[in-house]
């Protein structure tokens, strides 16, 4: 037992080191090269210098946002994969992203963003995702039994419907609108205001704290629903609460940063291969790894062909996917992965 807690300690420390490394790399890289050694002296000199504002007004907000969204999305992934006992489920499977995309497309095509610049897009995205979650939820509480399979199917279908509606909107919209919708869909951490950054940050950390209270119950749920009930868990209530947490995380991330795919699918999967099924470690480590991964991908996205910035969703997909395929193809890891 001592061994287990020490293992967790080392894994969590490793995840934090990974996260900090990603933060520092992100802080020092960019078109204006600032070496690591100078960061502290720039900070001490205080406001006023151009380097200070590059570091703390441009790069730091992105890092905080990347932390909150990367962590939040992979936490939502851990929760949903644990709940559905299906490693292919991700935060976007339940149609939350589709709803947000629909909300944003409507907002752009109805030109609402001209009345309320900055605020309109995130808000409509959030309303869109809320609407979808409520629809999925409502369709399910109608029935007496809250089965996960049914929930999954409803989510996938709602997701299809909303993405078809987005296609419909795309097909009838004009070029400049098309461009802004497509760019939003690809996802980016650029230019949200501090208010949004802090909201996402707080929500993300609160959800991490909340979901930790479910970690033991999620361990039991991984044996199956009946087994979990036999171990004294009110699975109906727990599933609803977990679904709400995951939806809130996904909805708020998507509405601020657009569709950043893959983090919520790959990071939990990857962490599960490395540290095992136990949610008491899995939740924390996935959060930190997801945060570090997204910050790292964002750094690449804004530096690789600068001054042009790539959509970060493209980088997460290419990088995450290839790392994962490489790991799966290595035999020793595959055996460990089999167990998960």
């Amino acid at each position, binding site marked *: 037992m001592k061994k287990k807690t020490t293992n967790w300690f080392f894994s969590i420390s490793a995840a934090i080191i990974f996260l900090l490394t990603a933060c520092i790399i992100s802080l020092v890289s960019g078109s204006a090269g600032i070496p690591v050694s100078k960061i502290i002296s720039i900070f001490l000199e205080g406001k006023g210098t151009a380097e200070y504002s590059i570091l703390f007004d441009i790069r730091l907000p992105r890092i905080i946002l990347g932390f909150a969204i990367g962590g939040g999305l992979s936490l939502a992934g851990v929760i949903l994969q644990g709940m559905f006992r299906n490693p292919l489920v991700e935060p976007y499977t339940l149609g939350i992203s589709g709803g947000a995309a629909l909300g944003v497309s409507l907002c752009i095509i109805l030109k609402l963003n001209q009345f309320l610049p900055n605020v309109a897009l995130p808000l409509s995205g959030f309303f869109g995702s809320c609407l979808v979650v409520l629809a999925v939820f409502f369709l399910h509480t109608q029935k007496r039994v809250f089965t996960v399979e049914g929930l999954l199917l409803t989510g996938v279908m709602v997701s299809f419907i909303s993405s078809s509606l987005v296609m419909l909107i795309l097909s009838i919209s004009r070029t400049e609108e098309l461009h802004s919708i497509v760019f939003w869909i690809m996802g980016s951490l650029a230019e949200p205001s501090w208010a949004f950054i802090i909201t996402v940050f707080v929500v993300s950390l609160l959800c991490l704290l909340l979901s930790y209270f479910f970690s*033991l119950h999620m361990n039991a749920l991984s044996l199956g629903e009946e087994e979990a009930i036999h171990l004294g868990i009110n699975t109906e209530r727990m599933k609803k609460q977990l679904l709400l947490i995951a939806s809130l995380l996904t909805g708020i991330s998507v509405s601020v940063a657009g569709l950043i795919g893959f983090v919520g699918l790959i990071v939990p999967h990857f962490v599960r291969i490395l540290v095992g099924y*136990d949610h008491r470690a899995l939740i924390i480590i996935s959060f930190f790894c997801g945060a570090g991964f997204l910050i790292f991908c964002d750094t690449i996205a804004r530096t690789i062909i600068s001054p042009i910035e790539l959509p970060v969703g493209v980088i997460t997909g290419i990088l995450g996917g290839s790392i994962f395929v490489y790991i799966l193809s290595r035999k020793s890891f595959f055996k460990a992965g089999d167990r998960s």
Partner: protein
Amino acid sequence: MIRIDHLTCGYGSKIVLDNITLEIHKGEFVGIIGPNGSGKTTIMRAITRLIKPITGTIYLEGINVSSLDYKELAQKIAVVSQNFPVMAMSVREFVLLGRIPYYNKFQFLESEKDLAIAENAMVMTDMIKLEDSYMSEMSSGEVQLAFIARAITQEPSLLLLDEPTAHLDITHQVGVLDLIKRLNRQYGLTVLIVLHDLNLASEYCDRLVLMNQGQIENTGRPEEVLTYGNIEKVYNTVVVVEKNPISGKPFVLVVSEEVKRKCER
């Protein structure tokens, strides 16, 4: 211990148990037998509140089970069910899951007491030598023992088992049932067990409940229930009932169609 009072329940509109009344006393070892689909497993599921009764009540130590929450129920009743999840966890971790009903809201790590109870359960079931092996890498006999160890870790007063000997060879069948008997005799654990094998049921149970089409056909000591007439009526099969020369309990032999035809000639 547990009293089932005029219970009717089922799945959706299909009624599986029809007006069942059954009482199980503290310290008893009761076996439920009956053909497939006669409602054996459904009784178990009703007791653990997996399905809600349509009419009737189940009392656990005098308390209506539907007024207990799942956690309280799990502290009193442990279940060894038929479903075998293949899990990537070690035996020790799996057995420790049995302590979940006892954790308080702000507890995330097992206490020394939890560890000692789990350790003791693994010693009793002889799983301690396998504590670091993975559940997914063990034979079905070992998995069954791990399930029983987890059930013991729950410190229940009632143990429900749903065909714990299915798919096991006779060594493991006897091993598992001897273990359950020991728990029953030494620790006073009340046992309710569903068994398909009539001979095992006859050897191990103090009392048998014979189910037929959602109703209790007969209940009593094995020699009272396992008679030629009862079995032929419920199972619709020709059998021979003899007495085990050592234990004096009845045992049931089947007769194949070919042999039956030979006899008729």
